[in-house]
């Protein structure tokens, strides 16, 4: 189909530019995605991870939420591991929390930000998944 050589060169050029965009895009914007247990283990063995973007998926610790400043919307709460609730870490976050955020039900959350060396996770975004409320199990309905 591509008898025209210029055409073939154009095609390769496009592919190269797209590959370059994706490659640099991934390497410059990627974040590590881990559980709280992995976060603790990995940052202990590799302190440089304190400097990079990390996303952690866990559960809001019940009763841990505190509004540090209502005027500046600074929130503080803790996130625990889904499988090993003993492993938890404090999170500070400035901004609006999603409506589904609360600390009295089993709310799964994904926090993204930086895990500071003082052991506090400075979140730039907080997402909540109120799993039980979307798809109820029969036990919950019975209760």
């Amino acid at each position, binding site marked *: 189909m591509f008898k025209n050589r210029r055409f073939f060169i154009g095609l390769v050029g496009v592919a190269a530019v797209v590959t370059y965009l994706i490659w640099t895009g991934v390497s410059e914007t990627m974040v590590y995605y881990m559980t709280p247990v992995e976060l603790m283990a990995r940052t202990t063995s590799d302190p440089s991870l304190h400097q990079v973007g990390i996303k952690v998926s866990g559960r809001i610790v019940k009763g841990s939420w505190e509004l540090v400043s209502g005027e500046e919307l600074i929130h503080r709460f803790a996130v625990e591991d889904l499988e090993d609730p003993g492993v938890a870490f404090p999170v500070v976050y400035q901004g609006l929390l999603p409506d589904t955020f609360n600390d009295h039900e089993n709310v799964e959350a*994904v926090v993204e930000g930086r895990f500071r060396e003082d052991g506090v996770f400075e979140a730039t975004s907080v997402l909540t998944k109120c799993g039980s409320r979307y798809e109820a199990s029969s036990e919950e309905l019975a209760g």
Partner: protein
Amino acid sequence: MTVLGELALWIALPVAIWGMVLAFVGGKHGRGDLVLSAERSVYAVFALLVTASAGIVAAFLGNRYEYLYVASYSNRALDTFYKASGLWAGQRGSLLFWVVLLAFFSSVAVFTNRNKNREFMPYVSGVLLTVITFFIIVLLFADVNPFEKLGFTPADGQGLNPQLQNYWMTIHPPTLYLGFTSFTVPFAFAMSALLSGRLDSRWIVVTRRWTLLSWFFLANGIIFGMRWAYQELGWGGYWFWDPVENASLLPLLTATAFLHSVMIQEKRGMLKVWNMALVTLTFSLTIFATFLTRSGLIDSVHSFAQNTKISFIFLGFLATIIGVSTVLIIHRYPQLKSETEIQSFVSRESAFLFNNLMLLAVAFAIMWGILLPLLSEGLTGEAIQVGAPFFNRVNLPIGMVLLALVGIGPVIAWRRASKRNLTKNFTIPLLVGITVVGIFAIRGSRHWMALTTFGISAFVMTVIVVEFFKGTRARARIEGEGIPRAFVHLVARNRRRWGGYIVHVGIVMIFTAFAGAAFNVKVIQTLSPGQSITLASPLGHDYTLTYEGMSSSRGRNMVWQAVALMSIDRDGRRVGSITTEKRLYETWPTPMTEVGIHSTPFEDVYVILANADDLIAGAYENDPAAQRATFEFQINPLVGWIWYGGLVLTFGALIAMWPSQGPLPEVRQTAARREAVPAAVGAD
């Protein structure tokens, strides 16, 4: 009614399998009677699935909480409107809804082709029934049967997530599903062409409107979802680059590529293999998107379920689709050779091909982003994710090139564009584009990405306006008509072309709106009643918002509702007011936020009630001293253009889809053909 519905779902399975087998056997052996029976089973399956869906709706309306699905998504106090739409509120119902829509489109396809295109219809029915059968099997055997009973009857249901109780959220999923399911028809025709060996452009011409219809629903479904996110999620954005949003965008991108590349095949007999690949890819992506929304394979705010059985079934089906189509394409490869070749790099063919490459590049980048966590975890054991920064970085530049092609494609010459063709068509639009960038730059704007987008948008708009102008003027002169009349006739005579240009106008408006987001203003401020805040709009004027106070009321299905009232002055003149709320629903543990939006043609003032010191004393007991509250204020320039652009796009797509007047000559001679065709098919 509900028991009848469940029964209907079970009966639909053997009927669909029966029809599927008869369609393929009838097609292979040229047995018209079998094919007719298969077509009747398409109608029968549709009727059965409608009965099943009616059963679910009846269970919602009748508060039948002994059904797990109804108990999970409804409660007695829920509005009837949201009860009825419970059919697609969750995974189980959505899958039933999906297949009933597919059965509907299948019936329409079979019915409209009962007297024509008979050579395609056996395998078309077969493919459609295969997909239907797959979904019925999923419903019945993958632990997602919407008719599953709890074994006891709860007094009330769990209620519907308040965030889903929104008009746009009610119409967003069905619209998207209409788009997903209707694309099955072009796919079925493509497979039929491959199976029967009728590989000329007929299958494309026959399914042209179907593809456009599907594209139209997909685009609108996505826009409705953006509208919902903007109003309901309360952060002032409309696109998250969330895996499920991305998954719904993928088929739209490849369908757009397909809509354009089929024109090359029709006009120049090229890209035949490419079109087959695109139709398969788009169909696979509709299945992938359905699967991703409803499987929980990838973390997302949208994916609700964690059911691994359904993941394996869906992945198996996807692999089968891709495998079978690939084998068929390879098998027919010798007959799919291009009739002509691309002659010049500077030609319309080349611009269209380039458009296809860009669209696929965006789709590829997005797919890469969706799958990266899975791939990286599988390969290195370490999950890596990318989010909005990645998608913006990669897709913005490609998007701008695509936008420019919207202006170049329609006016560059076929085969080989001459210098004269280029200068004649592009000098004025280019000058307009550069002038627009210049004006913004002189006025002090330095956001180059946004400026470039504005410049390209102006370029494309000029190209389109000039085309309309030239066409109308020529017609007015030749036919001796007045300008308005000539304009209407111009569009009516070639609806596909001019309708397409109107769609392009909508696209340009939407891209302009995206670029407008570069100038968003966002401020967080705590106010007591009577206090105000002044915001400078990027459009050059000032908004003063005064917090008037908080009141309470009690809406349906709610424990309480605290409403903050804010008046808006623009440059000292009162222009309106805004309310923003916190609502506590009876079935939800935490208060939900309702944002306040004051829309003008060029910008939105958007206010979010972020935090109130004491909602109970302040709003409930009406104590002004306790009504101090924190708000987030936003000015979002041009955001409304997404919705206006959506309307323009809808208008254009309707023009392009509108049936031509009068029966086409080929339709009339069909009675004789109907008898002859099965034998012809069997000859293969």
